[in-house]
């Protein structure tokens, strides 16, 4: 993302090695509120226990990506992982960033130093990936302890969630650069909630009518869920490259928009 931003951004916003100072700043801030970070870990775990285990008792086994039957918990757990990676990244890159720009004032003070807007954007995305990695790693450990990681490929679920975080974080931040008021954030929920519910999260894609199945292909979270699910269940096929390609493309597109919009947003 750094090199991409460097290419599309003007000299005033271009990121540099100073990104690390932003990370250091966030480390100092969170040193005293580390429990906030801890809290984020529980969201997918709660979902897993209530839906995966509770509902799973009633549902029984369901067909996985390659048609083989798996327990409902093993089916839904990777989807929870993917969805929480999306939610975390979207929250950080929209609400949090908007607040910092509008009310926090910290960015304005930072911009008076050699740190440039590109450093701030890159730093915030890297930071949210770092946070997301902690949550994902924790959740993957819980999954493993419950016997829901059925393949050694499951280790790669961690980088897969980082890719999801990058894709949604970049697009979320790009969207934030266009937001004018808190009302605009209702649109964010209007997008993420259906993504969460209809991305083959809770049941296999085949349950839907064919028209709807094709529609789901446009959901980036569907690609994220497929990716993570295939890795933890060990059902890899060439379709994964499509999933990866969609997420990478989304992240790059978001980054390009951020690069162009940041100057307007932070320097006026």
């Amino acid at each position, binding site marked *: 993302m750094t090199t991409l931003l460097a290419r599309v951004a003007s*000299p*005033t916003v271009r990121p*540099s*090695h*100073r990104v690390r*100072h932003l990370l*250091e*700043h966030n480390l*100092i*801030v969170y040193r005293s509120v580390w429990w906030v970070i801890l809290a984020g870990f529980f969201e997918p775990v709660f979902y897993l226990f209530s839906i995966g285990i509770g509902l799973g008792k009633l549902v029984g086994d369901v067909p996985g990506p390659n048609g083989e039957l798996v327990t409902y918990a093993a089916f839904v757990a990777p989807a929870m992982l993917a969805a929480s990676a999306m939610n975390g990244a979207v929250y950080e890159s929209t609400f949090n960033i908007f607040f910092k720009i509008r009310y926090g*004032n*910290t960015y*304005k*003070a*930072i*911009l*008076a*130093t*050699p*740190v*440039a807007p590109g450093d701030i954007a890159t730093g915030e995305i890297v930071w949210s990936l770092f946070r997301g990695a902690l949550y994902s790693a924790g959740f993957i450990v819980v999954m493993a302890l419950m016997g829901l990681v059925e393949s050694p490929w499951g280790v790669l679920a961690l980088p897969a969630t980082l890719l999801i975080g990058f894709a949604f974080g970049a697009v979320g931040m790009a969207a934030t650069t266009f937001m004018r008021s808190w009302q605009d954030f209702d649109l964010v929920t209007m997008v993420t909630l259906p993504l969460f519910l209809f991305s083959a999260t809770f049941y296999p894609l085949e349950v839907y009518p064919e028209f709807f199945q094709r529609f789901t292909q446009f959901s980036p979270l569907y690609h994220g869920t497929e990716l993570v699910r295939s890795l933890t269940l060990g059902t890899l096929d060439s379709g994964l490259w499509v999933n990866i390609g969609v997420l990478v493309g989304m992240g790059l597109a978001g980054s390009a928009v951020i690069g162009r919009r940041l*100057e307007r947003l932070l*320097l*006026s």
Partner: protein
Amino acid sequence: MNESLVTARGLTKRFDDLTAVDGVDFDIQRGEVFGFLGPNGAGKSSIMRMIGATSPITAGTLTVFGLDPYADGREIRSRLGVVPQENMLDEELRVRDNLYIYGRYFSLPRKVINERIEDLLAFAHLEDKRTAKVEHLSGGMKRRLTIARALINEPELILLDEPTTGLDPQARHILWDRLYRLKQQGSTLIITTHYMDEAEQLCDRLVVMDQGRIVAEGSPRSLIEEHSHREVLELRFPVGTQESALLKLDGLAPRQETLADRVLLYVDDADRALAEVSARGLQAESAVVRRSTLEDVFLRLTGRSLVE
């Protein structure tokens, strides 16, 4: 000593259809304290932000340290100390951490920062507050911390946007004392203010701004000499009698300003003018004799008072 740190020619800043800065020229020399004096909305802060390389110029030219703020923004900002109008401190961090992380933004080594923090805490008189959270500091303390923060990179040029606005008189005097020390050390300071006393106390040279333009330029003393008389007699008449009093004052002073609640007579000898007022049989409710200030200059140049 005649090295120009900031040079502006026809400098202009427009926001959509609002022209905040309307083609101004100025040069700021190394080692001087330069002031932008004017009411709110005169364009002072916009100029500061353009010099600080955080706001692109709309037209004209601007160089800072001989560099272009657009292309060389990082280089310029690394040599500046900025005290913005709003403190913009990290309220959730401790006093010490605010200085530390700000030093890191300049990529200073930790050891260097830690040494400087001790000096700066002493300078800002905040030694006892080093582990306090910023949100618990008083307004004056926050302002001093903001100034200390701006000094962490040992800047060649310090920008102070309304440094004492909103502070009580005692806090203002402490702050002026600190700024005066910086001046004694030979720092170059640029100050915006709408307080005349501040400009008169601190500035070697200043420009008076009104509606995005520079209306006068010079040292505080020369501006007062050029645009005002030496002394001022301020007369306040009982409610409802100012109109009739004005008739009797006619021709008494070379220049006269009538405000809503009082009349200002600009004269060379205010005591003699006061005697003349009595001789004409006028009974003022109160009469104040004072020296001319920049407030009077501003009133003269724009027809309005600075603080409305």
